[in-house]
Structure formats: structure tokens, C-alpha cells
């Protein structure tokens, strides 16, 4: 299942990765190489096998419904690239 350049562009867009035009061929080759490795899985017979999501198959622990956090805005926003009046700034979003 070889990827075309246009497939790579679509994937990069889904992942919001800005790829250089110049890099596209090399990236496409590299991805195809990896997918070639991965496609070896198809030879394995997994009929009747349940997927294993967590190695130790435990179940989720629940926590009590208590407020444990306090306002740390100044501290957390000290490392933010762009804020104003306590809000995080991004280029204007049009809906």
C-alpha cells in the first residue's frame, strides 16, 4: 500500500505539520519504507484474538469529587507565548 505524495500531504495536514515542498519526496519514501515494515503484520493470523490495549488489563480507578486545585494562572501563563488579560491569544478564529 504505497503512499503517493498527495497522501502524504493529506496526512501532514491532518497532523498540522508544515512540510517543505522540497522534503516531500524524501518524506514520502521514508514513510513508505516504514509502512513496508508495518505491512508485514498482515501475514499474521489473528482470527479470534482480542486486541490488548493495556498490558496488565486492570480497570479504571475513580477519584472523589473534590476540588483540589487552586488558581495558578500567573504561574502557568508565565511560560505562555502570548496572553492578554488572562486569555491565551491565537490568530483570530473565524467560525
Amino acid at each position, binding site marked *: 500500500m504505497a503512499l503517493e505524495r498527495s497522501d502524504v500531504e*493529506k496526512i501532514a*495536514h*491532518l497532523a*498540522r505539520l508544515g512540510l517543505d515542498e522540497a522534503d516531500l519526496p524524501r518524506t514520502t519514501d521514508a514513510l513508505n519504507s516504514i509502512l513496508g515494515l508495518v505491512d508485514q503484520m498482515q501475514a499474521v493470523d489473528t482470527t479470534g484474538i482480542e486486541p490488548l*490495549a*493495556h498490558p496488565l488489563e*486492570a*480497570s*479504571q*480507578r*475513580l*477519584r*472523589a*469529587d*473534590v*476540588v*483540589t*486545585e487552586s*488558581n*495558578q*494562572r500567573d504561574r*502557568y*501563563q508565565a511560560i505562555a507565548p*502570548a496572553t*492578554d*488579560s*488572562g*486569555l*491565551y*491569544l*491565537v*490568530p*483570530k*478564529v*473565524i*467560525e
Partner: protein
Amino acid sequence: MQWEVVIGLEIHTQLATQSKIFSGSATTFGSEPNTQASLIDLGMPGVLPVLNQEAVRMACMFGLAIDAEIGQHNVFARKNYFYPDLPKGYQISQMELPIVGKGHLDIALEDGTVKRIGITRAHLEEDAGKSLHEDFAGSSGIDLNRAGTPLLEIVSEPEMRSAKEAVAYVKAIHALVRYLGICDGNMAEGSLRCDCNVSIRPKGQAEFGTRCEIKNVNSFRFIERAINSEVQRQIELIEDGGKVIQETRLYDPNKDETRSMRSKEEANDYRYFPDPDLLPVVIESAYLDDLRATLPELPPQKVERFQSQYGLSAYDANVLASSREQAEYFEKVAAIGGDAKLAANWVMVELGSLLNKLGVEIDQAPVTAEQLGGMLLRIRDNTISGKIAKTVFEAMANGEGDADQIIKDKDLIVESDSGVIEKILDEVLAANAEQLEQYRAADEAKRGKMFGFFVGQAMRASKGKADPQQVNQLLKSKLEG
């Protein structure tokens, strides 16, 4: 062409937990931006989610109340997309294995019939933050206070056939979640949000038409108008030879029309997969049994019981049962006052308009159920008349004390001494000799109104305290005699 409308609703309810679904941040509405956004809510590197037990309980309560299968092994999944109000770049939601499976809810239609609407599933997920577009030239501001608030997304089957049915369904969900105490239902604050999936098809066709989703409609009125305008749009589109494109739309209440939303996730490939930071949630049957025992009496049963137990009309029963607090208030008043119909009337009419005027809910009523019930007792034992009772009620609302206190302080006790009343009547008749002559001369039909005149005069003379029944009786005999 006869068109049939097909509507399915996805309702997002914010669960009324103290803390968020995966973090210990507060969920209070309206706080300063980003003051309730912890490391986890901000999606900082290295943070991990831990599930709030109350969110699980609330979801299960809902499932039990709609008679649904509970997902006793349910799994959280990541819904991946990029948007600034979604800090991790994915929303933790549930996909293949939700906490609540198939159930149903009965809704009361306008013609009095009951329709059963299927509910496909309900699942837990985290809410996103908010984007503020207005204040920053060229930039949007992101507030993540809301990010991580627990949501229960309730998905209906596409079984509604009109905007009115859709509204009835939303109202029923709204009442139910408030009854269960799992959501405050405040649509203006976004505690309950509705996405409407609307399509049309020729009557008799089995296949569904292409649907559009109208997102985030936040009032019952807008839901009805949005659906109707969308239906209209689709009909016109098709009748003009066009095709409905599947898309997401927003309702504009000013223009009363829906418009296409510039999609925030254009190629909607969410790449769902089970969240590896969370383990499957296991819900034991014993837990569900214990929970079931804590279910309150639900709206349909209450409405039924109000009719059979108290002899109320279906309409009155529905109004009084529309909220749990109101139903409880009414029953308390009825129990103390001893007359359900009287109680129903006072709660719905007098109390109802007072609450309306003050703009508060019944849980903040200035007159308690005990007070109101106590006052009804005084009406029933003829201490005061129904008319005087309104004065007493107003005084109670003003904080002037209980009914008995007010009656005493304001000297409102009904005058029932027949001697006193007779004397008043004699004075009234003497003072109004001309009208008396006219009465004697008039025929049966005209007498009714004149009779009322004398009654009015007598009531005024007694400052409203005269027992109306006795006034009527004694006046009658005087006039006949």
C-alpha cells in the same frame, strides 16, 4: 409533495459535579478566565487524567432513569482534532463502548398523547474551553476554565417528526436531568446545549434524506424556530431542484435562518482510539442495584400520581410536576393545608406570579411551603377569606412573619359575628336607600348586579373582614324580608 420531517437530537448536559471529570479543578461558572484551569486542563506535557466517581454515578443514574442498558465495561476514547479551545489536540470522549446504551423517554404531545422517543446512547466526555473573538484585534482569546467540565452527551434516535416534538423531548430531558440532580439545566449558561439533526423525506419513503446538523441551539424557543427554518430551507432547496449537502450549520436568531458553519475540522477524520492513559471503567451490578434504590420518583410517575392521589387535572399535574422542587413544595403545602386543589391553585397562580415577578426559582421563594400551608388552613377554617388571604400572602412574602402572626398584627380575622354583620348591613342599606328602592323595583336579572353592590359596600365597611358567606346569607334575607 408531502414532506416528512425527521429529527434527531444530541443534547450535551454539563454534569453538576464539584470538580472536573479528569482533574480536581472547580467547575463554577463565570470565573475570571483561566483561573480554573489546572495543569491537566491546560494539557501541559506529562499530565494524566483520573476519572471523577461522581460523573460516573450521575451518568448511571441517567441510564437507570431512561431504562437503559448500562455499559458495565465502558471505555474512554480520544477524538483527535486541532482547535484552540481543545488544549490536548484531542477530546477525551467515548466511542464504541459508552457508559449508557439504548433507553427511551416518554414525551407528552400537545394533543395530550404520549410518544416514546428512543435514546440510542449517552456517553461521558470532557467539555472544551471557550474562544472569545471580540476583544483582541486580529486575535482570539482562549479561556480554558470550561475545559474538562464533565458532559453527558445524550443521543436520541431520529424519531421526532416535528419541531414541537423536538421541543417536548428537550423539555423532558431538561426536567429529567434536573429531577435527578445531575444537571442544573441552565441553557443560558450553557449547562444544557442542543445539536439538532434535521432532514426531510417524501412521506412514505423509508430511506432518510441527507441531514444537516444545527449546532449549539440554546433555548427551547430557538430550537423550535431553528428546526422550522431549516426544514423550510431544505424543502425550498429540493423543490428548486437542488440537493441537501451534509454539513454543520448555525442558527442565527436575528435573521431566523441557519447558515453553514465554516467547519473547524474540515476533513472530519477524528481517528478515534481508546485512550491509553485511562483504563476500562468497570461498573458492578451491585453498584447499580444500590444506585437504583436512590432514584427519585420520576416526572411521568409523579404526574400520574398527582392525578390519581390528589384528583388534579392532567394539565395541573404536569405543571406542578415540571420540576422536582415545585412538586415537593406543592405536596408539602397540600399536606399541611389539607386541600390539594386549593394548594394547587395557590402554588400555580399566586406563588407562580410572585416568582415570575421576582425572577427567582421556587427554591428561593420568599414564602415557604410551611407558611403557605399554614395560611391555607386559616382559609379553610374561615379565619380569613380567600380575598384577605392575598393580603396575608403578600405580607408573608415581605418577610412579615407567618400567617397567624400577620392575621393578628393586621387584625384580619374574618368577622363572623352575625350580630356585627347585621348591624353593618343595616347601616349600608340605610345609607343607600335609593339603590335599595331600585333593587326592590328591579327584576331578577338586574338584581344580581345590584346585590353585588351591597355586598361590596358591606365588605368595604367591614374593611374586608366580614365573612362573605354570612354577608350573602344575611343580606339576602334582609332584602327578601
